[in-house]
């Protein structure tokens, strides 16, 4: 089968990371990249386009990967679709609902593959978790709590990450990963969103928190904080069910533990977790699980699995990629609601005569 020719728009550190991960795949070749500021030295056989429209018009390219800052996604995505390219858009789909809807309208009816880079979905631990949630083995999912303490060491004040016009802010740029994950774990839909944000100074909003109540009583909390020394980076996701509790750690989940009240003959979906090691105790079992490889390797594996899913979809009409544009829109919708709520959600504290201060 002919190789799929890939062009990457936005060739910063993340674009380079994807490129490196995909180099091991014989099914594709990255043939062009687009980057505004050219680095001296060039890229050998790979074409470098200073202007992205030129990459989109390169007839050799089948699939355009959009790894630019978020506010550029929609314009590039629509142009690529109109040039009959398949597209993979880095999350978030866009920074506004109208821009996201524009991409969806543009893609409608076209025989093209279009997906969003929700890389977590291809993580083997996440795959098993989604299956566990839908199997019902632990009963209802009641709680989804993300605690994410990220480093700001690599994010100087002038980085686009802090510019909400460009990134959309932390809810939109970052929390969408985990909002999408929560959406995959349940058939319920969000009914109420409350949210807060803290600005360390007028230009840097560095802590955000959203609580999302779903239709069947699932309560999700998304806390993201970009203010840690890199040594202390930490992400945990806790899932609480009627009959069990699961905690996974790492923003690229690498390991976790669980407690479950299940009979030995019910553990099938749990045992599908990579590296599952269980200890039975009276009335319940405790277990650990994990992938014994580095974060870097798992991340690259996920990027490859995602790309193979897209390539399969390109080659075989009828195969739908795991992540759809509609998924990108649902998570963006909640993220936008959270950002709006955080901006207007002012509930001044009641002062009383007796309260100090």
């Amino acid at each position, binding site marked *: 089968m002919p190789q799929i020719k890939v062009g990457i728009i936005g060739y910063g550190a993340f674009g380079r990371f994807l490129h490196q991960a995909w180099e091991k795949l014989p099914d594709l070749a990255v043939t062009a990249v687009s980057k505004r500021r050219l680095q001296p030295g060039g890229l050998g056989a790979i074409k470098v386009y200073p202007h992205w429209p030129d990459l989109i018009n390169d007839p050799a390219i089948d699939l355009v990967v959009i790894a630019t800052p978020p506010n550029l996604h929609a314009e590039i995505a629509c142009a690529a679709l109109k040039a009959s390219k398949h597209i993979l858009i880095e999350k978030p789909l866009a920074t506004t609902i109208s821009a996201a809807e524009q991409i969806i309208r543009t893609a409608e009816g076209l025989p093209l593959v279009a997906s969003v880079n929700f890389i977590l979905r291809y993580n083997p631990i996440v795959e098993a978790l989604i299956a566990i949630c839908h199997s019902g083995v632990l009963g209802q999912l009641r709680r989804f709590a993300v605690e994410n303490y990220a480093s700001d*060491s690599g994010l100087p004040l002038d980085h686009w990450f802090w510019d909400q016009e460009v990134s959309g802010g932390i809810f939109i740029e970052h929390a969408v990963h985990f909002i999408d994950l929560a959406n995959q774990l349940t058939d319920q839909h969000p009914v109420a969103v409350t949210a807060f944000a803290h600005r360390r100074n007028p230009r840097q909003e560095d802590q955000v928190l959203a609580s999302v*109540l779903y239709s069947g009583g699932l309560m999700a909390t998304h806390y993201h904080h970009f203010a840690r020394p890199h040594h202390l980076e930490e992400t945990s996701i806790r899932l609480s069910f009627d009959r069990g509790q699961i905690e996974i750690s790492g923003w690229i989940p690498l390991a976790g533990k669980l407690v479950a009240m299940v009979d030995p003959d019910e553990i099938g979906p749990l045992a599908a977790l990579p590296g599952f090691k269980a200890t039975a105790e009276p009335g319940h079992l405790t277990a650990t699980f994990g992938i014994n490889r580095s974060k870097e390797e798992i991340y690259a594996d996920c990027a490859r699995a995602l790309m193979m899913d897209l390539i399969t979809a390109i080659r075989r009409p009828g195969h739908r990629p795991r992540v759809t544009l509609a998924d990108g829109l649902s998570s963006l919708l909640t993220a936008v609601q959270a950002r709006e709520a955080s901006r207007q959600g002012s509930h001044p504290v009641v002062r009383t005569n007796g309260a100090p201060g």
Partner: protein
Amino acid sequence: MSAYRVGIIGYGGFGQFLHHAWAGMSEVTITAVADQNPVNRPRDERIKFYQHWEELLRDQGVDLVAIATPPATHAAIACAALEAGKHVLIEKPLATTIADAERVVETQRRTGGLAAVDYMLRYNPLVVGLAELSREKILGELRRVVVENYAQDEVLPPEHWFWRREISGGILIEHAVHFIDLVHLLSERTPTLIQGVTHQRSSGQEDIVCANVVYDNGLIATHYHSFTRPGFFERTTIRLGFDLGEIELEGWIPLRGHLRALVDDKAGAELQKLPGLRVVEARDVAELVDESRPEGWGNTSTEALLSRGQVQCRGITYQVERQVQAEFGLNASKQEAYTASLRALLVDLIKQISDPSHRPKVSLEDGLKSLVIAVQAAATAQRSLYDAAD
């Protein structure tokens, strides 16, 4: 000095537990109890029994009244007790409404009796150590508190007063106040924004609540409480995120915990304030590699300016030497720790009777401050319920 004479009003499960905890203390004697249900009459006949709490307040043989009735009745009993010249210890919450709570505060100020709320977590040695570390900013600023509390509902049948908001105030008021108060113990920040979310099971019982509280300077607290689990599967964790470390406590009566932190020599020594501290791993910061950025965001031009041992976050530069991981814990059962805290609280309170300059660790104002947040969280949670129903 003769022992202070204590009367307990509300002699159900918790009132009896208070009695059990305080029995055998040299500082106090339980001389009377009141409970509207005669079945709860104590077997010890030396203890007077009243079916009406007003009678207990007229008993000249009682110096201090412990109020262990359902929450909505706390304020009326506390005010009457203070008016009758008794000192009072009020089970949390102080009251179920701000107006009621303010009435207690006003009555206390006018009568001059001693009054406190039973925030016994403040007397848990783990909490005491943590509060010192936090207030002295040994690990930098406190930015995050997360309480995840999965409680049992096995002993809470649908007809229990716990589920009746007009009596209990609901979970945020009846239960979350413990942990809201804990945040206030750890930090002097001022709350600026409060929002609650609530869920009701089909029977109309509110069984899951979540409240987020934002304080000034970037402290954000989340209080999640669900009463939906079987008894043995109860779990409570309290996570604290500081600029230079994170600490997690386990148990709603915290009995153990673990931490990871960046410290210099002084901060490392201060960690010993946590009972039973055992360092599991210590590594020089120079040995640690940065694994934080597979995405490779941005450059590291600001980091290049840092010298050895300096770490930067939020634009603040801290000097550190080691990353430590440690465990700590009390060498006590939950029952023992709970009892010890209740005893310490009572001793602390009555010390003020003989020494008016003594300031107990917990006050009526602490009860009011946390209740104000709980009431507002509950009110906004009710609104979210209506939003969700639309």
